[in-house]
């Protein structure tokens, strides 16, 4: 199996150069004692910030690379073999490392892949990009994700060659296979819900820290009054901590309820597989009921709105972030504030569009499952009057 080396792509080299160039310009500007209020320094800082962020986004939506592999990349086979697979229309995402996923596309017999961060990786990039110098770290982290994806595909390629499925399995084998797959889906949903809770806690804690930083800056008033500063800072800190704790508690209760329900499902499926249930227990009925739970289990992984198009998610974050900053720091520069307002407005519009698409996708998913249930009832001739 041949997977191109990441650094051999001339486009990657060009993007790295643009990011490094901006940073170099900034460092030179600082060493030459540029005044912080000068427009040139401001431009250099913004360019570094933007350049690093744009590099991150462009790498995330990097062009499709050919995947030369003898065999069939079948999401069904991959899932049966225990890989984490998310089907997205004609493409599918395959998790190859802790922070790396690959989106695989098959067109006319040709196979292509694109590197994507996992949900955790995406949030790390987003939070690092809040501060100018941290965007460089975000870029390095994304480069790590890129390398891990390539390494993962090289590792899994030989393993996937051996995956095979006997033709014409018996009904009993199909039932057992279905029970196993449903159990894995339920178990992965439990893990996904727990992981999502941990991710959200990390995000809430980080945003609380960022909020505290903003509170520190905004509490300063001229002329400086120590008592007023202490009241503002103390009151704001208490409010921040209260909101963070309440938010975490609410998330924990929701995540625990969902995880417990999925845990019960997983245990029931395992019990039937092991034969540790009374003879009257129906495996087929349990499977039919599990099928109706499948959309919810799949959604625990899907997170359609934010992780389906991570490049667009990062772009929205950039627009909102930069727009806000331009609005606040562009005091005295109407053009800067106007630009900030425009960026913020575009970011909000894209955000609303993402939300609308996510709801549409969920609605289509529900309609698809309703159609499938109808199709299944047709198999048994259950439609119409008896």
């Amino acid at each position: 199996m041949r997977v191109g080396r990441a650094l051999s792509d001339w486009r990657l080299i060009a993007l790295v150069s643009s990011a490094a160039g901006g940073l170099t310009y900034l460092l030179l500007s600082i060493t030459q004692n540029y005044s912080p209020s000068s427009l040139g320094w401001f431009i250099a800082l913004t360019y570094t910030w933007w350049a690093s962020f744009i590099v991150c986004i462009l790498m995330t939506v990097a062009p499709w690379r050919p995947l030369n592999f003898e065999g069939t990349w079948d999401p069904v086979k991959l899932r049966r073999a225990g890989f984490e697979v998310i089907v997205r229309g004609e493409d599918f995402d395959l998790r190859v490392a802790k922070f790396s996923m690959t989106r695989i596309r098959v067109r006319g017999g040709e196979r292509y892949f694109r590197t994507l961060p996992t949900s955790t990786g995406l949030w790390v990039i987003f939070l690092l990009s809040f501060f100018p110098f941290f965007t460089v770290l975000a870029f390095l982290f994304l480069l790590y994700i890129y390398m891990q994806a390539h390494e993962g595909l090289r590792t899994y390629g030989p393993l996937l060659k051996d995956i095979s499925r006997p033709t014409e399995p018996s009904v009993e084998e199909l039932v057992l296979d279905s029970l196993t797959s449903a159990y894995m889906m339920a178990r992965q949903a439990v893990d996904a819900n727990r992981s999502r809770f941990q991710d959200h806690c990390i995000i809430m804690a980080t945003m609380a820290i960022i909020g505290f930083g903003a509170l520190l800056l905004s509490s300063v008033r001229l002329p400086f009054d120590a008592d007023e500063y202490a009241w503002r800072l103390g009151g704001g800190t208490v409010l921040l901590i209260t909101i963070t704790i309440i938010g975490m508690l609410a998330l924990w209760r929701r995540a625990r309820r969902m995880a417990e329900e999925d845990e019960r499902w997983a245990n029931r499926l395992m019990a039937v597989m092991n034969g540790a249930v009374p003879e009257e227990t129906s495996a087929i009925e349990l499977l039919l009921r599990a099928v109706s739970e499948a959309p919810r289990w799949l959604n625990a992984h899907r997170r359609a709105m934010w992780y389906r198009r991570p490049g667009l998610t990062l772009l929205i974050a950039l627009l909102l972030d930069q727009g806000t900053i331009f609005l606040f720091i562009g005091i005295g520069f109407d053009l800067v504030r106007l630009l900030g307002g425009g960026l913020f407005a575009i970011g909000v519009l894209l955000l609303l569009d993402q939300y609308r698409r996510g709801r549409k996708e969920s609605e289509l998913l529900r309609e698809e499952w309703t159609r499938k249930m109808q199709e299944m009832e047709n198999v048994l001739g259950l439609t119409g009057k008896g």
Partner: protein
Amino acid sequence: MDKKDAGNGECPRLDRERVRTLERPDLYVVARMLERLWHERSPMLKTRLQTAIGTNYDVFSRYLDWMLEKGLVTLIEQDGHQKVELTDEGRDSYRRLVQWINETVHGKT
């Protein structure tokens, strides 16, 4: 009651009134019955099948008549008792149901 003697030991008794009252059969009950009959290597006593699927006699009778009308099962006389057996169509329906479930949980559309 509508009686029909197939002349080969099979005595299907179909209560069309009971079938008409079963407007929309419960998928889970039908699936349980098909599964139970599939795993039996020989025709099954009606009472035993009723106990296996966990319904009362009236509900069981309605579903049995519905499945007889659909041709999924047939009744035969054996050892002086009336027993239920899956037909070829019933076996095929159960196999297709299992295949559909398998394809669905694996995400195939």
